[in-house]
């Protein structure tokens, strides 16, 4: 049998996190159908948000968890795609799908240009330069009021039509779930591909990768563009969910939140990011309905994770399962 398939966890939860795509897809379909059938619009919107954030978080995991590139500016691509799509749809009256395609192209080109500069650095310096570059975009959006609407953002972007109108909360959730499934499948395939193994190698030991003949810089640049593409997908879905985009979409707060989703879920596992996104949306929306001090609760939860599950939730679960299996033997 193929040892890659049967290999035990690499220490970052990969062993646990190789669910069969069919099973994963079936669960997703059941959840979506149940939500659409039984939950009111608000909860349906929450699940939609979870899926969008999950795409966003998984895209960051490609950088942070798989390649070892700690980005604190990932919202740049999320916001860049959303703003570009909104501007093209509103100011140039382009059809939504064309505007979205060009918006995605902007995110990917943005990642290419950003990383021509950022990849000259590494580790904490990469984190700082990505933060700085995303802040440049944020300040541009806030100050260029005539075009971007400044702090007021750009409202009034209609949801697209895809044979049928995607206006209703239920039908929009189904569409987002479809995009989520395709995005997950593509990213899951990527991290298991030769390219994905090269990314793991770069994360573990960049010098050794060079000594084996890998052009490390090209891999980093390419994965940054792939990650920006999926961050852009999430940004455009978010734009359509709210029919609005504002400077928050480019903010450092959003970059930090998505980084926390990845770290809480378990970096380098891809599926951990889904857990992180679900936990984040639940904490943000459910806890805030109970108490005004919801940020305190959210902060406390993150501290607990840092103390007791520093490798992330899914790795924590895997270790518990492994130790309980060991005891039962």
């Amino acid at each position, binding site marked *: 049998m*193929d*040892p*890659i*398939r*049967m*290999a*035990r966890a*690499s*220490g*970052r939860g990969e062993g646990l996190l190789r669910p069969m795509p069919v099973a994963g897809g079936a669960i997703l379909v059941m959840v979506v159908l149940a939500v659409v059938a039984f939950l009111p619009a608000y909860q349906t919107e929450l699940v939609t948000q979870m899926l969008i954030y999950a795409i966003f978080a998984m895209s960051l995991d490609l950088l942070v968890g798989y390649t070892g590139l700690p980005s604190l500016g990932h919202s740049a691509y999320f916001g860049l795609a959303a703003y570009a799509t909104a501007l093209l749809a509103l100011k140039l009256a382009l059809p939504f799908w064309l505007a979205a395609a060009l918006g995605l192209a902007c995110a990917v080109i943005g990642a290419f240009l950003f990383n021509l500069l950022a990849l000259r650095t590494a580790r904490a310096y990469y984190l700082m330069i990505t933060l700085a570059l995303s802040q440049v975009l944020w300040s541009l959006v806030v100050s260029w009021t005539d075009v971007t609407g400044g702090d007021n953002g750009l409202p009034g972007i209609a949801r697209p039509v895809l044979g049928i109108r995607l206006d209703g909360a239920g039908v929009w959730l189904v569409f987002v779930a479809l995009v989520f499934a395709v995005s997950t499948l593509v990213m899951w*395939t*990527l991290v*298991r*591909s*030769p*390219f*994905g*193994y*090269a990314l*793991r*190698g770069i*994360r*573990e*030991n960049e*010098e*050794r*990768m*060079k*000594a*084996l*003949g*890998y*052009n*490390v810089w090209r891999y980093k640049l390419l994965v940054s563009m*792939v990650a920006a593409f999926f961050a852009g997908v999430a940004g455009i879905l978010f734009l359509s969910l709210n029919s609005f985009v504002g400077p928050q979409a480019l903010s450092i707060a959003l970059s930090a939140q998505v980084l926390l989703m990845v770290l809480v879920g378990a970096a380098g596992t891809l599926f951990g990011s889904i857990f992180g996104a679900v936990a984040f949306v639940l904490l943000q929306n459910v806890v805030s309905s109970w108490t005004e001090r919801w940020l305190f609760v959210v902060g406390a939860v993150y501290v607990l994770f840092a103390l007791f599950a520093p490798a992330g939730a899914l790795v924590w679960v895997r270790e518990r399962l492994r130790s309980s299996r060991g005891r039962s033997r």
Partner: protein
Amino acid sequence: MSVLSVRSLTRAFGGLKALDDVSIEVEAGERRVLIGTNGAGKTTLFNLVNGQIAPTAGSIWLMGEDITGLPVHERVRRGMARTFQITSLFGGLSVYENMLIAQQALSPQHFRMTRPASHFEATREEVRATLDQWHLWHLRDEKVATLSYGVQRQLEVILALASKPRLLLLDEPMAGLSVEETHHVTDIVLALDRSISVLMIEHDLEAAFRIADRVTALDQGCIVADGTADEIRNAAALQRIYTRGGALGGRS
């Protein structure tokens, strides 16, 4: 034609010349060992040949091609491989995954992202055959960081060989090994095919003299002796530099 030709290589760090006008030729199939005390310039020479640092002056030729300005990965693609003084593996990954990454490095599919690595039958078979050949197949699922130091040093050499190099640079492969492990790694080096030329840094003089066709001694960035193992063992210059640092003829 020499496999490696180092011509008048100089590397200065500020006012300090770590390597001063060094020239070495490594012939096809030759086992050349670099010896010298700490700070002699051996690893600097390796890093220059490998492309990790750029020379201040001089040039490096690999199989007749000037590679002085090429980055590390391009040199590997032209037939050069190296190991490191401090074990340099993918500690968080399994032995199998380490081997897979090394094996696919120069294959056409190394940039593919649309198919799982497990679907590339030829690479899988190569990985299996290599691990079988080196008696590591039973350790395939072990995380490399958990392996013994001796096995890690062995794996270091095996990863370097995955690219099927014409020139192999071994940076102190016996460092930190027990006597038994040293004999094992020495045997591995001796068993290498003669289509691979070897340039090796080694502090263990007994192992160095056993392996070497020729020995080059460096001191303070300069070549002070060069010849066969027997010639070098008795060279006055070598006696002088090693009596500063320890006994000659065994582990320095």
